[in-house]
C-alpha cells in the first residue's frame, strides 16, 4: 500500500513539474495530491478483475488500479504509446480495461449511471465481480448522481459508490453547495448502506471498502462511502487554490495521508525508515522510467484517427 501511495504522490509531483517548470505537458490536468489514501485503500480491497468507473481526476485511480505508470505518462504526453493512444489524455488516463480500470469520464456525475449499468451487467451475468465508482463532492449535486444512485439502490446492484469529499468543487466549498448536514445523508436517503470514512487514513478506507465489497459480492447490495479528504492543490494543475483559508490548508497538510501512514508504519514497527527509503527509491526509478518511455514515444499518425470512431464487427 505504501508503495502504491508513494507512486501516486511522486507521479503527480512529476506531472506538476512537467507542467509548471518544464512546460513539457499542456492541457487540463487534475492532480490527485492528498487523496491517495482513498484510491489506494479502495483498490486494495477490490479483486484485480473488479471494475472501476472513475473521473477526470483519475491519475490516482489509474495507478492504484495497476495501470502501468509508463502508459499513463505516455498518455499525458499524447503519445501513441499511451494506454489510450494519446486520444484520451489526462482526463481519461484511467481507461484500461485490461486491469479492470474500465472507464473514466470528464463530465461531472456522469459515471454513476454508467456504473449502475456495469453493475447490472455483472449481476445479470452472475459474475463474481463488482464495480466501484469514484466521484467528488461536486458530482453529488448533478442529476446524473441522483438518477444513477437511485437505480443502483432500487435494483440492488453490486456497486460501491466512493464519494471523495475533497471539500471543494473547483473553488466552491461543500457547505455552499450541499444543504444536508453531510453528503452521506444522500446515500441514506436512497435506502443504501452508508458510511463516512476518514479519507486520509488508508487503513480506514481499506477496511470500509473491504466490508462494502463483501456485501456487494455476496448479497449484491450497494454501499455509499463518503471519504472525507482534501485536495492539497487547486482544482487543476494551474489553480493555486488561493480561495482556501490558510489555516484550513495548514490543518489538512498536517494530516497528509502519506505522513499519517508512514508514522503508523514506523510507530507500529511494521517498517523501518530504511525500508521506507528503499520503497521511495523503487518508486523514483519507476517514475523516471515512465517519463523516459513517454518522451521516446511517437504521436499517432493523424490519418489513422478516423478508424477509432466506429468499431467494425
Amino acid at each position, binding site marked *: 500500500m505504501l508503495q502504491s501511495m508513494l507512486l501516486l504522490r511522486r507521479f503527480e509531483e512529476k506531472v506538476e513539474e512537467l507542467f509548471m517548470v518544464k512546460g513539457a505537458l499542456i492541457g487540463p490536468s487534475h492532480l490527485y495530491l492528498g487523496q491517495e489514501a482513498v484510491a489506494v485503500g479502495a483498490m486494495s480491497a477490490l479483486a484485480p478483475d473488479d471494475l472501476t468507473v472513475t473521473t477526470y481526476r483519475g491519475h490516482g485511480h489509474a495507478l492504484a488500479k495497476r495501470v502501468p505508470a509508463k502508459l499513463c505518462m505516455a498518455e499525458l504526453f499524447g503519445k501513441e504509446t499511451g494506454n489510450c493512444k494519446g*486520444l484520451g489524455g489526462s482526463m481519461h488516463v484511467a481507461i484500461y480495461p485490461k486491469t479492470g480500470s474500465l472507464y473514466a469520464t470528464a463530465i461531472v456525475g456522469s459515471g454513476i449511471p454508467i456504473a449502475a449499468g456495469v*453493475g447490472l451487467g455483472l449481476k445479470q451475468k452472475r459474475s463474481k465481480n463488482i464495480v466501484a465508482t469514484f466521484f467528488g463532492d461536486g458530482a453529488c449535486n448533478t442529476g446524473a448522481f441522483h438518477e444513477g444512485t437511485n437505480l443502483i439502490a432500487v435494483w440492488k446492484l453490486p456497486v460501491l459508490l466512493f464519494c471523495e469529499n475533497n471539500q471543494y468543487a473547483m473553488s466552491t466549498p461543500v457547505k455552499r453547495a450541499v444543504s444536508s448536514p453531510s453528503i452521506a445523508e444522500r446515500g441514506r436517503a436512497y435506502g443504501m448502506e452508508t458510511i463516512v470514512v476518514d479519507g486520509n487514513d488508508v487503513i480506514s478506507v481499506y477496511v470500509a471498502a473491504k466490508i462494502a465489497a463483501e456485501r456487494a459480492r455476496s448479497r449484491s447490495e450497494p454501499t455509499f462511502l463518503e471519504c472525507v479528504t482534501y485536495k492539497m492543490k487547486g482544482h487543476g494543475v494551474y489553480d493555486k487554490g488561493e480561495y482556501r483559508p490558510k489555516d484550513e490548508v495548514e490543518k489538512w497538510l498536517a494530516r497528509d495521508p502519506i505522513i499519517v501512514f508512514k508514522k503508523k508504519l514506523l510507530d507500529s514497527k511494521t517498517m523501518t525508515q530504511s525500508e521506507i527509503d528503499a520503497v521511495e527509491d523503487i518508486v523514483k526509478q519507476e517514475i523516471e522510467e515512465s517519463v523516459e518511455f513517454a518522451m521516446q514515444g511517437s504521436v499517432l499518425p493523424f490519418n489513422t484517427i478516423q478508424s477509432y470512431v466506429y468499431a467494425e464487427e
Partner: protein
Amino acid sequence: MRELTYADALREALREEMLRDPNVILLGEEIGVFNGVYKVTRGLLDEFGPERVRDTPISEAAIAGAAVGLALAGLKPVAEIMYMDFLPICMDQLATQAAKMRFMSGGQLKVPMVLRTQYSLGRQHGSQHSQFTPAWFLQVPGIKIVLPSNPYDAKGLLKSSIRDPNPVLFIESGLLYRTKGPVPEEEYTIPLGQAEVKRKGEDITIVGISRQVGEALSAATKLEQSGISAEVIDVRTLQPLDLKTIVESVKRTSRLVIASDDVKTGGVGAEISASVNENAFGYLDAPIARIACPDTPIPFSPPLEQSYMPNADKIVETVKTIMGK
C-alpha cells in the same frame, strides 16, 4: 407476403434477436408490465422475464447511462426513450459518453447499444412531445442514426442495429406504428448505410427521411399525372449516409428535393444539400430545395399542426415550381 404493422415488425425484430442472443436485454419506461406505450414490446416481459425486459423509473439519464454501462459489461442493451423530446435529458450519456468511448480509449472500449425512440409529429402532442431532431446527432461522430420508413425496414434495420458493435440511435415514427406493409416470415437483415431507391424516375430526385418517404412516394404518383417522372430515395440511415446512391441519382435527374419532418434551419436537409453540392454541383439544373417544418415550435391545434407538417402536396408544389410546370 404477409403484412405486419410497423410496431409489430419492430416487436418481431426484438423478439428474434432476444432469442438469438441471450445478451440482448431491454430497458425503458413502461416497456414491461404496460407492454410499451406503443405496444412495441407487447408480450416480451411474459416471454423473457423481468431480467431481460426491465421497467425503469422515469430517469432518462440513468436509462441511457445504464445502457452504456451494460454495453461496457458485455451485454447488448436496447433502451427505449419514450419520446424523442426526452433525448436532451440523456444527451450527455449518448453524445458525450457512448459516442466517444471507442475513440478516446484508443479503441479499447466498445459500446454495442441501441437507443430506440420515436417522434410524434402529427399526433397532436404539442411542442414538447412531437419534435424530430436527428440533425443534433449528426454533430456527434461515433453514433449511428437509423430511421425506418416502413415495416419491412423497421424489422431489418432494427436487427442490424442490435448486432452492430456501435451505439445506434434508432428513431421510429409515431405516425407509422399502425401502418401495415409486407414483412417476410423468413429471416433477413438490412445493412446500415444503404439507401434504397424506392421508385425510379428521370426528371427529379426526391430524398425522403423517415415518414416523408411515404409522402414522397404519394407525391411521385401525383407528379406522374402531370408528366413529371420523380425518383424517390429512402436514406434509411443518416449516419452512415449513403451519399453515393443520392449523388448517382442526382447526376441522372439533375434536380433534387429533400423532404424531412425536422425544422428547416440546420436540419438534415441542409446537410444532404451541402454534400450533394460538394459532389454533384456541375450536374444540377436547379437549386436544391428543402421541404421541412417552419422554424417555430410545433403548434398543438390540429389544423395548425396539419399546416405545419410537410406532406405530399407540399412536395408536389415544390417540384412543379422547380420543373417550371
